[in-house]
């Protein structure tokens, strides 16, 4: 049975009609392409009148297929599909071809443009004839949500959802939630105390009836699809019985072993082998670090166990696993700080008084290793001069090309804190000072007034090799002052390196685990950079905070809330439609060779051991078609992009190619048998 195809050529005002002879194209389609029943051109196909034209033809002329030659399908495919559906035609029997973006806007010669438009219409007609009716499937959405990462972003997302009445599982790798923000002293530009605004939220999380907090835990495995994920979480052994522990802290006091705390104190302070990262930790049960614990090293000590009033210490504790079902996932896994040792000319790790920004945050923090005193590495001497180096590992072709976004403001904050707490002079070495948010530029002006010095130039070197009088015993920052056009050597007592924010070391693995992609650097990729910033290409997986790209606290909080809002929308809707553009394995053709099984990054292809064939789980399939193209037996077909459709499109697009073609070779009759 031949199809009745309707072809509609849009003028798009003069956008298309100004270059393409639309009437000629419509005439060509109507007269020269087989099975075209109606062929029209119209001023604006996307207008309601244009849509009605299609609807009327479907009803009156009995069209079975529709081709719209207009703008890009990314703009109006939905519009015309809806028009078809309104007239009772399955929306997938409509096809758009982009004669504006690919023809009229990029070609100047009218005749050439018209020719190309004809070929594209021919291809569209050939293709649409082979389209199949498709129906999206609907699946229910589990109201539980998994939030990965207990920094400020994850906390915000979890609280938003929990307050709305939905259960949340918050998974945090470290023993306490709080993330980087918990390490900070003040926040810019308002200079609020970070702890004062964070800890109430943390205890909220700890006590919220809808939040199931899984600290010191990691996601081991995730399977399923939007609305229906199954997650296995590994709760690492704390060696402390959470039920029994009251959080009194006697064990920490009595523990005889002290080690450098590389995580929370950024290597600036010490902790015990049994510890909680900081006094306000949530949850406040301590953790035993088996790598340094004397008992785990030598088999004796047990001081903590001896002194624990509730017998909560359990040296035999093992990792445990928790299986949960959730409908959506929010990834708020945060960032790592760039290792400043990779810029050896700045001397970090070699020159004692070169600090990283995070070290300095800890130093400023009243509960930090120096109780908030700004001192040199000797722990006593107050610096008389401090240099702040911007863009360490950011905006640097050798390391990370991007701007870390928060460092300028942090540097200003540091400048303020140094001047507030000491009499030191502060000099900032910057490339550009970027203060683009509300109240930020004002803060910059404030620091200028407070007397912070600014040298526009990337520091070339930080050295203790004195050259001139006055440099002995100092750290000398050498930089070209690009405003003066002069080399400068600025001797200081202390240097703070504004290290770049980098994706978590395991970001790409996490991305792969959750089936979402990363940018080249390793930041999670959002569905659309402007219009869909927290969703990802994988339905049901959302990203928020710095894991998606460098950003400050207000932006992270906003993203956390935005992700939560998106999830709430999903939960409220109750069900979710799944695109029918998926792959299908025909089991009568499949011989189970297992070529395809490893190709799907979404794990949609299963091997059915009983039938010895592979099977595509349509709910997991994203429709990329890689397996379709890979199957050696051609046992896989891809809906809406099947071989016959694409072959037809190739044939159509080359309708005017010289030299004939294979299909027309003499007596070739290898067409597939009619069913």
């Amino acid at each position: 049975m031949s199809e009745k195809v309707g072809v509609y050529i849009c003028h798009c005002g003069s956008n298309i009609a100004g270059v393409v002879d639309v009437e000629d194209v419509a005439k060509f389609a109507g007269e020269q392409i087989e099975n075209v029943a109606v062929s029209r051109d119209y001023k604006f196909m996307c207008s309601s009148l244009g849509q009605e034209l299609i609807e009327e033809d479907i009803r009156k002329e009995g069209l079975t297929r529709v081709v719209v030659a207009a703008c890009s399908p990314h703009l109006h495919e939905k519009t015309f599909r809806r028009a078809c559906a309104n007239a009772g035609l399955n929306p997938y029997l409509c096809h758009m071809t982009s004669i504006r973006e690919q023809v009229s806007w990029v070609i100047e010669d009218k005749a050439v443009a018209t020719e190309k438009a004809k070929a594209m219409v021919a291809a569209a007609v050939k293709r649409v004839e082979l389209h199949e009716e498709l129906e999206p499937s609907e699946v229910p959405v589990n109201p539980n949500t998994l939030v990965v990462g207990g920094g400020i972003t994850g906390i915000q997302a979890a609280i938003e959802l929990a307050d709305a009445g939905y259960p949340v599982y918050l998974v945090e790798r470290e023993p306490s939630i709080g993330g980087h923000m918990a390490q900070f002293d003040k926040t810019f530009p308002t200079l609020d105390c970070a702890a004062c605004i964070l800890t109430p939220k943390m205890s909220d999380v700890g006590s919220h009836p809808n939040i199931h907090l899984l600290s010191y835990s990691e996601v081991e495995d995730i399977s399923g699809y939007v609305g229906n994920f199954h997650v296995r979480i590994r709760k690492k052994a704390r060696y402390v019985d959470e039920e029994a522990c009251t959080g009194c802290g006697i064990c920490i006091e009595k523990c005889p072993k002290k080690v450098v705390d590389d995580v929370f104190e950024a290597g600036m302070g010490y902790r015990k082998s049994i510890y909680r990262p900081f006094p306000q930790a949530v949850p406040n049960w301590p953790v035993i670090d088996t790598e340094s614990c004397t008992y785990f090293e030598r088999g004796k000590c047990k001081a903590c166990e001896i002194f624990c009033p509730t017998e909560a210490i359990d040296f035999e504790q093992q990792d445990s696993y928790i299986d949960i079902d959730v409908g959506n996932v929010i990834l708020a896994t945060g960032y790592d700080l760039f290792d400043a040792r990779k810029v050896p000319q700045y001397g970090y790790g070699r020159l004692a008084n070169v600090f990283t920004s995070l070290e300095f945050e800890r130093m400023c923090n009243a509960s930090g290793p120096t109780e908030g005193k700004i001192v040199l590495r000797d722990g006593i001497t107050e610096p008389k001069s401090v240099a702040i180096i911007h863009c360490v590992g950011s905006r640097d072709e050798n390391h990370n090309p991007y701007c870390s976004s928060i460092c300028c403001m942090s540097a200003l904050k540091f400048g303020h804190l140094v001047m507030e707490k000491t009499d030191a002079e502060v000099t900032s070495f910057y490339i550009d000072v970027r203060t683009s948010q509300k109240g930020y530029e004002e803060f910059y002006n404030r620091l200028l007034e407070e007397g912070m010095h600014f040298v526009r130039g990337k520091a070339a070197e930080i050295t203790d090799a004195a050259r001139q009088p006055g440099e002995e015993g100092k750290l000398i920052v050498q930089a070209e002052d690009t405003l003066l056009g002069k080399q400068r050597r600025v001797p200081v007592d202390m240097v703070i390196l504004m290290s770049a924010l980098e994706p978590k070391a395991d970001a790409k693995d996490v991305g792969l685990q959750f089936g979402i992609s990363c940018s080249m650097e390793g930041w999670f990729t959002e569905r659309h950079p402007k219009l869909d910033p927290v969703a990802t290409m994988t339905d049901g997986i959302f990203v928020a905070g710095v894991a998606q790209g460098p950003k400050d606290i207000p932006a992270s909080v906003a993203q956390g809330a935005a992700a939560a809002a998106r999830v709430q929308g999903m939960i409220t809707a109750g069900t979710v439609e799944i695109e029918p553009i998926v792959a299908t394995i025909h089991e009568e053709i499949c011989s189970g060779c297992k070529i395809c099984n490893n190709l799907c990054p979404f794990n949609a292809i299963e091997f059915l051991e009983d039938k010895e064939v592979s099977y595509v789980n349509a709910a997991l399939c994203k429709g990329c078609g890689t397996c379709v193209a890979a199957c050696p037996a051609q046992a896989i077909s891809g809906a809406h992009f099947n071989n016959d459709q694409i072959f037809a499109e190739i044939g159509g697009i080359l309708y005017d190619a010289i030299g004939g073609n294979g299909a027309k070779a003499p007596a070739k009759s290898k067409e597939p048998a009619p069913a």
Partner: protein
Amino acid sequence: MSAAKKGKLANYWAASCGGCEIAVLGINEKILDVAEAFDIVLWPVAVDAKVHSIEKMADKSIDLCLFNGAIRTSEQEYMARLLRRKSKVMVAFGSCAHEGCIPALANVSNREEIFQTAYHDTPSTDNPNGVRPQTETEVEEGKLYLPLFYDTVKTLDQTVEVDYYLPGCPPEPERIWDAIVAILEGKLPAPGSVIGATTTVCDDCPRTREEKKIKEFKRTWEIIPDPDICLLEQGLVCCGIATRAGCGALCPTVGSPCIGCYGPNEGVEDFGARMMTALASVIDSDDPEEIERIIQEGIPDPIGTFYRFSLAASQLRRKTLEGLDPSGASA
């Protein structure tokens, strides 16, 4: 099997090794059943029948023609047309008729090169006068003719309309018998189809298969394969993944990778493309240089590897014709 009225059967042998002609005898004593059901009007290897007797027959008077061999000369094309005209059912029998097979590997060359090699360059050739076959030769008695030798080997269906295909080099006796029974009982699939399975050799292969990752392609002489594991997983280019089942996985079962004689699976338009895409997909590297190295070192002869049996039936059919003006202006 009832044979109220005896049918007529023709077998013919065009560009092929002759194995297909013999393969019919592989059905053993069942050949007697065939003889009971059919009058054999043509079978070059077994019956002394003449072409002119076929020419004299009425059109469509042969019930079944099993045509083996590809088409590479005008004489073969003449016979294909003749038998098509005389037969009710035309079966492309065996790989050569089906998709060109080994004879079609000549499509990497052309007439000129082949003649040069066959009549001049081979060490055993003694041809002091440089004689070459001519399509026309004047002798005293008049003109003598030889068939025209083509540049490009064709499949049967690129020459005449074909009703059914029986793949294999040669087709296995069981499959031949199945097809004959189907024809006799009138239980034929839709015209144009391949009579056979719709799965691939892997379906019959006893080896265990896992998900595939290939770091290196190996030649058969490089390893002694493990007897139980998929040959492809061991790096051997086994075409079983893309080859239609029907042989019973004879080669891989005994440790020799499938070379693809049963042709592509149902609906496939290009056998080589299926092999290329499947193999490339499971190369275990994301580094362009390493990928290039794996391919260059592992697949030194892509046409011979991917199109050993199907070059004539492939999308491109042949290697580019050297010496031919690519603009086609000379044509």
